[in-house]
């Protein structure tokens, strides 16, 4: 029994070793066969060794197979081989080659598109307030001034078709509110609030026709913002603007922690050597007021010393964002 087992082990290791040594030069031998017109033999050689070939050799094997299938007039097999070679090297069509002209023509009918794109986005935002209800002074002038902030995030896009893109965003954003109260020759107040958010969006974008290699798009991005921190500063300034008294508080617990949001975006993408860059203008509306009504004025010492109570506001933000994304997994489509 042991002898039989030994014999089978020796035989199988010999066969495996032999097959491996055959496949070691499979590409070279198949190329020789292709050049000498032995196309069927070349195909056979490569097909038996495909599973053994890795990396560049695997790409070259599919490349050679596609060329040979074209010459053998087997379009379905050529289609499959081209699919595989372009998935292994999606940039192949962008580089020069020494392929037969007829093969290059056939190859030009295929378009490689990324299935997913992962990227980063960063930009500046301008926040303006939508006034809902007042708790402020009855005299003097009070103005809310638009303030700049930042948006930074990551995104993953899934191309559902050439036109429709599904996108998942996660971002951190900093927005500010500035409220100036002018009491006519009295001490004026400058209220500033910094709000830091973490937000998620699930959006859909529609690609418009390309214009000079720029791909414009429009999209709708509903989502949810989670307040991370709210810091309030209030300066009392003398009429000449020379002397300041400062007050501050961390107001996170006095704010609504979640904000349903709706984002509208327009932008464009452009393919570059590596990945895609883009620019977009985003308009973001928050649906809840910033201040939690039940907590308004709960910090009695701040209210007492500043004589200030926050108004009911909703935030609208316009942001200008640059994006950079890299493709992740590809699909190959043949144009009809």
């Amino acid at each position, binding site marked *: 029994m042991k002898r039989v087992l030994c014999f089978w082990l020796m035989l199988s290791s010999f066969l495996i070793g032999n097959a491996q040594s055959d496949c070691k030069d499979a*590409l*070279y031998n198949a*190329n020789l066969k292709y050049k000498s017109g032995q196309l069927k033999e070349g195909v056979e050689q490569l097909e038996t060794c495909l599973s053994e070939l890795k990396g560049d050799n695997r790409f*070259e094997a599919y490349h*050679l197979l596609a060329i040979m299938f074209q010459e053998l007039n087997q379009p379905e097999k050529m289609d499959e081989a081209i699919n595989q070679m372009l998935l292994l090297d999606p*940039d192949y069509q962008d*580089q*020069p*080659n*020494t392929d037969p*002209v007829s093969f*290059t023509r056939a190859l030009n009918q295929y378009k490689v598109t990324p299935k997913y794109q992962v990227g*980063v986005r960063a930009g500046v935002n301008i926040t303006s307030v939508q006034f809902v209800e007042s708790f402020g002074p009855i005299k003097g002038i009070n103005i809310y001034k638009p303030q700049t902030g930042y948006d930074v995030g990551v995104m993953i896009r899934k191309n559902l078709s050439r036109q429709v893109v599904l996108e998942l965003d996660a971002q951190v954003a900093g927005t500010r509110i500035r409220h100036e109260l002018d009491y006519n020759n009295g001490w004026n107040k400058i209220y*500033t609030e*910094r709000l830091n958010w973490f937000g998620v969006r699930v959006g859909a974008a529609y690609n418009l026709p390309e214009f000079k290699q720029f791909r414009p798009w429009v999209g709708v991005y509903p989502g949810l913002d989670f307040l991370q921190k709210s*810091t309030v*500063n209030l*300066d009392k300034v003398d009429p000449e603007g*020379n*002397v*300041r*008294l*400062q007050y*501050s*508080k*961390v107001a996170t617990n006095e704010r609504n922690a979640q904000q349903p949001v709706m984002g509208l975006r327009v932008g464009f993408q452009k393919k*570059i*050597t*590596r990945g895609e860059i883009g620019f977009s203008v985003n308009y973001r509306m928050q649906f809840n007021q910033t201040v939690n009504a039940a907590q308004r004025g709960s910090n009695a010492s701040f209210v007492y010393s500043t004589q200030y109570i926050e108004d009911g506001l909703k935030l609208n933000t316009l942001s200008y964002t640059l994006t*950079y994304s890299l493709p992740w997994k590809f699909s190959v489509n043949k144009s009809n």
Partner: protein
Amino acid sequence: MNSALKNIATSTLFLLLLLPFIGKSQDCSERIDQAKKYYNNGQLAEIIQLLDTCQTELHGNELWNVHRLLALSYLGLEKNSEARQHVIAMMEISPEKKPNVLTDPVDLIKLMNTVTIIPKFSLGFGVMVGPSLTIPRPYGAYMLTDQVKHYTGKNSLQFGLSSSYQFNTRLAMDLSVLVSTKSYDLDYSFGNWDMKMDEKLTYFDVPIYLRYLFPGKKRLLPYGQAGLYGGYLLLGNNNFDATFTKDESSFELININSANRRNRLDYGIGAGLGCMYKLKKGHLFFQANYLHSMANISDADKRYTYPDLQQSYQYLDDDMRLSMFSIGGGFAMYMGYKVIKDK
């Protein structure tokens, strides 16, 4: 009707004017096929004669094929310097194209491997991440009472983007945009009072360095860099704490916006050392930089405008510069390549 006729006449004239050029490039495309046949027959001199005039008329894939055939012909005729010029031209068209072991002769592969290709432009994303140590350098003290002030720099974080343009194998220009937080503690005391102040200043910094790449191993390249930087103060956050030592009672003022008391602009010089480890389409880098500030952080005009800081905390801003030592690392991606031509 007249305008339609005019349009047809204009279009016809335009096509007639274009015809010689279309004809020429079509002619050259056909010549490439002819040259390939010559190459297979060993008629190398004929290839040179055939393709000589096509170099100015073609572009992209076809021009690359012309240079490749000319390089192969010159190699066959043992005119290596001419062959090299065409290999360089080939690689300028497509610097990322690697030799093909199946279709390229060994001599051509050897010649291609002798041509130096450097990454022309690289971009690092969100990766200049590392701890930074603030180094406070006070040079003008302002006090309302008899005090001894002691500043201590603190660790914080720096992150941002970096881009690099390489001029040749040794010299590169590096431009980064960074968000840097500089923070420090101040301890001072007078009478029976112990005071503590800490401040965190967030800057948008733009350092620009001239980088020298030292000869290194195949993938590992050390470098040194020096240059200038400019910064803009984005946020300032300040806390004060006062303790009466006799009964340990204390009061505090927290999260005060200090940006109003500070100069918004910062600038200075910087230098650093680092190394990069080359990967397939980019490199990992690790570097240590020192930014030496030359700007006063305090706005002299605002020094006496905060009476609560003066009365409750006996505090006045000193003239001070904030330098920074940072260690960072990340990944930069190559966005384009450049072929180094022979001198």
